[in-house]
């Protein structure tokens, strides 16, 4: 064999090997849709092809496809990439991307065959479809905004609540504003490329208020600069409404308990009035002047008590919303420590503060917290005095963990037994005999509740008590006058 012949035979062998081993489905088709050549991969995927038409192999149908792209290649000689759905030898449908190119045996520009190289893209197509469904159907608002703050993509839930929004400014859509919102989390993400979270009130397409919690993330497309931000928001309107209702219910429950407590106080006063009346009557009957005088004094005392109770009760029942200011809780605690330190020291009690460093400010009503702390510290000092214990101390501590701000007052005084603990918030209960009206703790609880918080008591008889005021930061400010966002 000549060298030229050997070289040609080698080339043919190489080409054949190459053609057969290609990891794509390759087929050569003539003008009459006949498959004239195909590789191993093609056979493996579609089955026997010899003597068959392309449409019979690709689609398992008996007629050419209505918009056959390959046919056009025979006319214009241009390569095409087609997204096609085909049927494999087992009858399974799948997505393929097909590259079709003309094959010319001469240089006359006549297309004799076309070569079709196809590869499966079912997974990618499915992912795309799944992603689209997920994007649209996920039960929260999803939008993609560009650097101009225009919405370039919005999901179904968003469109349903906010209307047709593509191309519009996000601030225009979310809040019907003419300029960017203050505290805009998307602006922060554009700036630092990090996730940001915040809560806002928007206006829906029907003019309804929509409360939403939004998280913004950079839509990373491999560029240095953030070009798009994806905003995912949850509609928390109902949740917020429920939270407010719970707060209101707690307030009402407190009012109910207060009324029960008031009844208890009045019963004692009534006993005093009955007692006075009875003693006067008995004194008159027995002609006992001293008994009449004692009865009269008893009447006077209990009328006075009625007046005091009514006054206290009116001031307690004043319905008002907290007047919130951004304050450092530590400062409020220090005011109380400064105020009561000397008084406590005179009774041999050390009043101390145990403050969380770098405490973040919080929206609180400073006067209300002052009243609460005054009540709790005064109770704690009394508990120490009753405890007859040496080395008495009262500690006011601040903490801020897991989104809950706490201010607690701890004493190592007399402590309380189970029955007292059960009653302290439910009636006008006082352990101070005639001196207390029992309103201090009720008032404290009412003020704490108006802040959206709660008060917890831990106590052990003979060891001391701890009153913990807990203010979840998320609830702070829910029950104050609504103000326009900055």
């Amino acid at each position, binding site marked *: 064999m000549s060298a030229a012949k050997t070289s040609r035979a080698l080339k043919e062998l190489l080409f054949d090997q190459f053609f057969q081993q290609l990891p794509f489905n390759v087929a050569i088709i003539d003008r009459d849709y006949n498959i004239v050549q195909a590789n191993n991969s093609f056979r493996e995927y579609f089955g026997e092809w010899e003597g068959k038409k392309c449409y019979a192999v690709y689609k398992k149908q008996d007629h050419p496809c209505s918009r056959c792209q390959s046919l056009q290649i025979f006319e214009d000689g241009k390569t095409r990439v087609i997204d096609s759905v085909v049927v494999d030898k087992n009858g399974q449908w799948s997505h393929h991307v097909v590259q079709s190119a003309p094959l010319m045996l001469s240089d006359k520009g006549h297309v004799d065959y076309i070569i079709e190289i196809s590869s499966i893209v079912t997974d990618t197509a499915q992912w795309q479809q799944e992603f689209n469904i997920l994007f649209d159907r996920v039960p929260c608002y999803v939008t993609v905004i560009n650097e101009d703050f225009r919405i370039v993509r919005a999901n179904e839930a968003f469109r349903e609540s906010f209307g047709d929004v593509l191309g519009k400014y996000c601030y225009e859509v979310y809040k019907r504003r003419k300029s960017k919102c203050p505290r805009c989390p998307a602006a922060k993400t554009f700036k630092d490329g990090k996730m940001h979270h915040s809560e806002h009130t928007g206006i829906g397409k029907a003019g309804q208020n929509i409360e939403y919690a939004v998280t913004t993330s950079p839509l990373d497309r491999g560029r240095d600069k953030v070009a798009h931000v994806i905003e995912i928001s949850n509609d928390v309107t109902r949740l917020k409404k429920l939270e407010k209702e719970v707060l209101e219910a707690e307030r009402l429950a407190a009012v109910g308990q207060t009324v029960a407590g008031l009844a208890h106080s009045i*019963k004692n006063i009534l006993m005093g009035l009955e007692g*006075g009346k009875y003693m006067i009557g008995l004194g008159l009957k027995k002609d006992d002047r001293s008994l009449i005088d004692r009865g009269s004094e008893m009447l006077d005392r209990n009328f006075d008590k009625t007046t005091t109770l009514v006054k206290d009760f009116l001031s307690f029942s004043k319905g008002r919303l907290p007047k919130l200011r951004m304050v450092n809780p530590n400062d409020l605690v220090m005011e109380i420590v400064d105020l009561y330190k000397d008084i406590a020291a005179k009774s041999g009690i050390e009043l101390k503060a145990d403050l969380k460093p770098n405490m973040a400010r919080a929206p609180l009503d400073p006067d209300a917290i002052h009243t609460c702390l005054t009540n709790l510290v005064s109770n704690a000092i009394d508990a120490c005095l009753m405890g007859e214990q040496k080395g008495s101390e009262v500690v006011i501590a601040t903490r801020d963990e897991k989104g809950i701000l706490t201010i607690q007052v701890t004493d190592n005084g007399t402590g309380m*037994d189970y*029955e007292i603990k059960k009653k302290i918030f439910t009636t006008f209960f006082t352990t101070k005999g005639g001196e207390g009206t029992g309103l201090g703790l009720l008032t404290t609880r009412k003020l704490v509740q108006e802040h959206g918080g709660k008060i917890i008591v831990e106590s052990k008889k003979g060891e001391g008590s701890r009153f913990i005021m807990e203010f979840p930061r998320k609830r702070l400010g829910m029950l104050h006058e609504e103000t326009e966002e900055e």
Partner: protein
Amino acid sequence: MRKLIMIIEDEPDVMEYLKTILESEGYDTVGCMTVKDAIDAVRRTPPDLICLDIMMPHETGISFYTRLKKMQGLQNVPVIVVSGAVQQGDFDFRSYVPDKSIPEPDCYLEKPIIIPEFMKTIEKHLGLSSLPAKGKG
């Protein structure tokens, strides 16, 4: 011998009122304004009957009652609870003391008391209900 009734009550006017009623009805009385004083007094001179308030400083009347019921020789002293804490029909002793080995108090009277009802109850629990209301000595 005159019967001795102990009144445990932190409100001075209520104490004076109850004492006046009982003394005018011919009973001896002893008054205690705290549970601590009452425990001492009850040990010193066991009374024939106790009128007990619930809400008191430091320790409640319930605490006194449970301690009394564990004191040798004093378990059978009748106890009438006189309190404004709950309405007469609503007093649920077991919500305070779930331990069933401690018997319930003999009676609960709501403040303000009605004198004839109060006296009738006292007499009943002193085992005197068949006797005339006055002149027990």
